[in-house]
């Protein structure tokens, strides 16, 4: 756990030659896209869900 915390703490730190001390591994990057992507898809479709529910409610009330 300590290693992971240190890893994230040192993100952005650079060596003397300007290169990054740590770059995010490709799999870690993919995990980031996964988390963001799944949240984004659920949230966007969730908004569509609320939109349909609201429309159905309005439709029932006006009948």
């Amino acid at each position, binding site marked *: 756990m300590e290693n992971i915390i240190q890893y994230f703490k040192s*993100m*952005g730190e650079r060596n003397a030659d300007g290169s*990054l001390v740590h*770059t*995010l591994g*490709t*799999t870690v*990057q*993919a*995990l*980031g*896209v*996964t988390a*963001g*992507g*799944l949240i*984004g*898809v*659920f*949230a*966007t*479709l*969730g*908004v*569509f*869900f609320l*939109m*349909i*529910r609201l*429309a*159905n409610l309005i*439709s029932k009330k006006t009948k």
Partner: protein
Amino acid sequence: MYGIGGVLIWLAINKEYEPMLLLPIGFGAILVNLPLSVVWEHAGADGFLKILYNMGIATEIFPLLIFIAVGAMIDFGPLFKNPMMIFFGAAAQFGIFATMIIATMLGFDLKEAASIGIIGAADGPTSIFVANIFAPHLLAPISVAAYSYMSLVPLIQPPVIKALTTSSERKIHMAYHESNSPKWLKVLFPILVTMISGFVAPISVPLIGSLMFGNLIRESGVLERLSQTAQNELAYLVTLLLGITIGASMTAVNFLTWKTFLIMGMGLVAFIFDTAGGVLFAKFVNLFLPKDKKINPMIGACGISAFPMSGRIIQKMANEEEKGNIILMHAIGSNVSGQLGSVIAGGMVLALVPLIFIMATI
């Protein structure tokens, strides 16, 4: 490559697996691998297939035109009657992301992995659109994998569903209340979906905008002939050109690599994870529902974009499990949600990959 082209044509004719695409792809693969490859380029001049490629694939016009046609074919009515189904369209995109992670572990870079993962969208045009932006060199195997596995959905989904559900779960009945959705909702829906998607992931607008434009033509009720043209002539013509052009990108040098075999394998993994994601999400939702409101978990598997094939398979499975168990409308509702979910997921991947790339180098 002649053998691969021949197999694709055989699958199209003898097995009727996506014949509208696999036949042109197979023939295109044969054409481009003939001596001198005149159809692609010869004596410094572009051949007709290269012209089509530059015009329709490189510019992403073909997949977007297909989306207008698909949009004109979709009826969101079953979803409006049971909006809960929309979440299965999100859960069944799990395969995209799981496959992307696996692809990075196999040594692909993030953009290649994202393009491979998108096979799990079970949506040819989205796969082509994303692959063309992130990994155009992998476009041919990704397209072939996407369309091949879409045609194999009837073989892929049932064993995965059976492995994750009990017989009693597959026998769950779901009540369906017949009601008509208001017309204004059907008209407003494509407009609002486009606008919301545009704010959430602006890069997804070409994809979602084309799909919803086609749907608006259909639902407007005043453009019947345009709607029919989009569903028939436009769909057939662009599919024909898209297929042969994708086939033309299957040169032996590009296609016969170990990456192609890995991509084909991961395409299957993507479809399995999609199905599993949808089914397991339905089982999770069932934990919170009262006994008489439980969802048949097979519905979750319909959240993939293979429309209406997946919905029909699930209905067939429900009927085999217990005669007279009708869950078709729920399945179709979940299936059209998959159409939305796959496009939104494609947009998310397009937006997030460059963002993560920047973050990784800060």
